[in-house]
């Protein structure tokens, strides 16, 4: 799991990369798009895959399974900050659903990322089913709020 400082650093780097419009890592647009889609689908999606059945009451609260999913999310999203350079608005071969608003409203995008981070931390801190069920809706909402503004329909 990442420490608070590491996440904080990442948020700072994200702000820099967006604000200055520089791609930090020497990564092609296709690689960046591929990597951020993997973060979304495997990382975030993996957390949802474990969390949603617990929310729906189909499965019991499972701290161990959640821990594994969050670790996988950390791994899949580790270069997050460097995946949104202005030169990644379009891929070469890779399709992207990222909307231009990410780059025309960098503050809004950052805030949406911040909301997700806070909600994600709160869910990680949950120790039992009751506290988990209180914390989780804000996390799901944070995915939706960012997608409403910054992601085109998936089709």
């Amino acid at each position, binding site marked *: 799991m990442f420490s608070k400082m590491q996440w904080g650093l990442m948020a700072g780097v994200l702000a820099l990369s967006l604000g200055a419009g520089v791609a930090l890592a020497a990564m092609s647009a296709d690689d960046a798009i591929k990597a951020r889609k993997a973060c979304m689908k495997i990382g975030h999606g993996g957390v*949802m*895959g474990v*969390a*949603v059945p617990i*929310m*729906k009451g189909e499965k019991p609260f499972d701290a161990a399974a959640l821990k594994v999913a969050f670790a996988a999310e950390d791994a899949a999203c580790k270069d997050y900050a460097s995946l949104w350079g202005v030169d990644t608005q379009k891929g070469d071969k890779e399709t992207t*659903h990222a*909307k231009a608003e990410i780059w025309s409203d960098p503050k809004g995008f950052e805030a949406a990322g911040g909301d997700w981070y806070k909600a994600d931390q709160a869910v990680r801190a949950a120790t039992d089913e009751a506290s988990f069920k209180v914390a989780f*809706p804000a996390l*799901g*909402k944070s*995915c*939706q*709020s960012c*997608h*409403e503004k910054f*992601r*085109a*329909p*998936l*089709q």
Partner: protein
Amino acid sequence: MKRILQALGALALLGLGVVWVITTPVALTSAVLPDHVADLENGKLLFNAGGCISCHAPGPDVKDVAADVPAGGKPLKTPIGILYPPNLTPDPQSGLGNWKLQAFLAAMQQGLHPDGNHLIPAFPYGSYRSMTFGDVADVFAYLNSFPAVKNQVPAHEVIGLPIVRRGLTFWKWLALSQPVWKPDAAQSDSWNRGAYLVNGPGHCQECHTPRTLFMTLDTSRAFMGGPHPEGKGKVPSLHGLVERARYKDAADLVSAFQNGEVLGYEHMSGGGMGEVQGNLSKLPEADVKAIAEYVLSLK
């Protein structure tokens, strides 16, 4: 030669004159409206089903007004330019305070403004005209129950707006001659309720049905999805949602409408659907179930 040109000029003028006359909107005659006792609870339901707040939300510079008050001004980007949906609160100058129910009906069912202009169909009156008189009257009563907010919204940023409004005559001839939604006696009450909410107030077809060359709904391809009407991205088809394994069953789709991405339903966020889902989540469960029943009957 000169005579021919003059004749052509005269013909052209005559043509323009005819166009001007036939594009002059015809206001509603003051027909006597049926008696109606307003039901605010029902008005609120239809306000939510109709998603009025998604477009008429307060703009960024409206201060101290709750986000669920339809004070207007939130910019709506469309291919013809930026529109500023007007203030629907009962303020007499900047809102609907001076509107009579008759005028409101004409807006909702015929796309007419009291000043005689055609309204731009980004305001989905093509669908709202399938709403019953009672439901429209209840929405009006509900709007009048909001506090009056003084907020004159900015003028639309559309090049040649007066001409665009005139040109709408032709679009309206085509679009408003399509039949309004009618109940199907062969189906259950709940199916009909769902069909009404989807095709009337819910205006789901405005996004989920592709358009013809003339920008009217291509009803032969109803709910088949296509390019997004606001210009970017695609809207998915609503046919065969269970057959294509997008949802397990009706209960799963109901859960998707009620919770959206909060319970991991991935296809309910982008392109305006997030707001639609938020509005649907405010409806009584029986209505959400009816909508799901109808949608899943689209094979």
